[in-house]
């Protein structure tokens, strides 16, 4: 009962915090609808005289955001798919198959969890270069998948360990091989873990900047964050374009999040805590 009494005072006290934390969004949205002259007046509280939706049309066209979004989506789809394809079987093998060198292999993978990608970037670049994968979405995707593999395997393995051995044994009695067990027994049980893995790898890929900065050279293969930074520095003198372009980059994912909010939150926290 004390809880209910406290609800509204706390909510009220949180309102200013809410305004401050989301202030940058409000300001950005409002500025993105102003004319260049209105932005030049430097009054954050002034409303635009007329909503300049044109800014969005111009930014979209000039910045080639359609292409950037497509690249980002392809990159994301590739990373998510490859992460699932590689991490689920490996996690299963490490959890349910006993083989020599298993511990050793597990530690080698765990080791990767601690190494920041910035710390291996020079040879990583050389490797990609030697494979002819610089300036290609395939190259960036493979590098990101590799970067996410330690976490992905760790997560899947933790989950599979919790699945009773009896299920595996029973399937084996029925003559199933490991691949079939994984596909027919384990995966249908692991929706929560898969969901977490999808969300976490998707979010980190969508937001990645460091690897694209180094690997993706020409504008036609760049992803959204990198494209926006380039756009913002090329058109730095036209702030209406910078602002509307910025909104374009985060609006899709925010909308997606608002729609899938519950599942998203669940996947993210469960994944992070389990992993």
């Amino acid at each position, binding site marked *: 009962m004390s809880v209910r009494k406290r609800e509204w005072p706390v909510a009220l006290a949180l309102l200013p915090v809410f305004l401050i934390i989301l202030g940058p969004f409000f300001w950005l949205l409002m500025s993105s609808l102003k004319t*260049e002259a209105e932005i*030049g007046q430097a009054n954050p509280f002034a409303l635009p005289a007329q909503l300049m939706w044109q800014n969005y049309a111009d930014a979209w*066209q*000039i910045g*080639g955001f359609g292409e950037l979004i497509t690249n980002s989506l392809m990159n994301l789809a590739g990373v998510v798919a490859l992460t699932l394809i590689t991490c689920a079987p490996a996690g299963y093998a490490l959890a349910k198959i006993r083989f020599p060198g298993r511990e050793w292999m597990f530690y080698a993978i765990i080791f990767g969890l601690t190494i920041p990608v910035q710390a291996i970037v020079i040879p990583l*670049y050389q490797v990609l*270069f030697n494979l*002819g994968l*610089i*300036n*290609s979405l395939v190259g960036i995707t493979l590098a990101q998948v590799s970067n996410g593999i330690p976490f992905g395997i760790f997560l899947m393995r933790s989950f599979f360990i919790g699945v009773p051995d009896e299920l595996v044994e029973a399937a084996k009695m029925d003559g199933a091989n490991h691949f079939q067990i994984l596909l027919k027994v384990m995966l249908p049980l692991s929706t929560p873990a898969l969901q977490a893995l999808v969300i976490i790898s998707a979010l980190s890929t969508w937001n990645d900047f460091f690897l694209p900065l*180094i690997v993706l*050279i*020409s*504008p*036609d293969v760049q992803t959204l964050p990198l494209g926006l930074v*380039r756009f913002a*520095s*090329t058109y*730095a*003198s*036209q*702030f209406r374009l910078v602002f509307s372009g910025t909104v374009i980059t985060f609006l899709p994912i925010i909308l997606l999040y608002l729609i899938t909010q519950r599942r998203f939150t669940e996947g993210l926290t469960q994944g992070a805590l389990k992993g």
Partner: protein
Amino acid sequence: MQRRTLMATALAALAAAGAVTAAQAQTLVMWGPEQITEPLVAELWNGIKADFEAANPGVTVEFMPPTGNISDGAVQAAIQSNAGPDVMLTNSGVARVSTVVNAALVAPLTAAYAERGWDQQIYPWLYEELKSQRGGEIYEVPDGLDALGIWYHKDMFAENQWQIPGTYADFLTLMGQMKEKGINPIAIGPRTAGSAGHLFGNILQASSGTPVVGEALDGKLDWTDPSIALGAVRLRELVDAGYIDKEMAALDLDGAARLWFNKRAAMFVAGPWFTANARNAGYDLTNAGFAAMPSDIGAAMPTGGVGWSWMIPANSKQPELAMKWIDFILSQDVMKRRAENPASTMLYPRAIKDYNPPTQILAEIFSTASGGVGYNPSVYLPAGVVDTYFQVIQGLISAQITGEEGMAQIQAKMAEAQ
């Protein structure tokens, strides 16, 4: 959009050429030009490209919009990607060119200078200068020279009866008056390293004169020597007097230029290329005036040096075609056409006959520069020094170090480089 059009044109051209001789179809990928997304610039370059393609049947030129320059690593990344350009137009200068030369990313052009007569097509002093930099080996063909000086608003100056004075002392007085009026005397965006160097180069020139700056750049004069250190001391004085707002230390070129375009700042140190920024920002170019920074030593002079150069990547797939392209760029037709185009933003590497500057401001810049141009140290300092040089300027503008301390740091790097 622009890119789309370019690609479409390129594809169309390719298709047309392919119909005739599929075997001979060749593509020349060119890094540059900057601001190709600006309609005026695009129009000019598409014209040049069309003429080159017409003169070389089967050849298609493809522009690769630059994502940066050598200082920020974009050029190196592009070359190393192998998806990179066959010929490049980019910001040059000793340090930048050394960076790509040392990384073996660009091809030597010394032989081509002799064989193709390029040595006859640029100013003799310029050719000598290039020869002297790397033991005779040359890796670049200068495309344009810079002339950096003070840009001011004609209307603001007329209204307040201001003018760029003849002595440095009077210059300080003028800035005092501006500050009293509530106008920032000088806007500067030192986060754009080159831009910080433009202002500082002007002050060095005004304080020490061309010969002294030249000696310091050659390493014959210690940078801590008062005769050259004076410029750094003066820059710090401008900051302490509030003539340069400390808070500008966080701005980049565009952030600072915005203050000038909106007339919240009275003066801005820049070169002819600033016309493009002004046009983008919707600034009325007829209101812009240009003058050299007042000097007590010798005549007031803008500063400059090679601003942009052509280079051929070591892994160019079309080295022969790239040379042809440079021949074409150096031809009288193309040079005159570029110089007289309203999108023109630089001085050309040789005197052009019967030349009429396309805008009033360019005419003013050319006439100011006709008496000679001093050194812009950014493009003359050795590679190991230039980054420190830029950082020191940031340190001075954010009032973290004194002029003497800053010069000592530059000197330390100079000693290392030699």
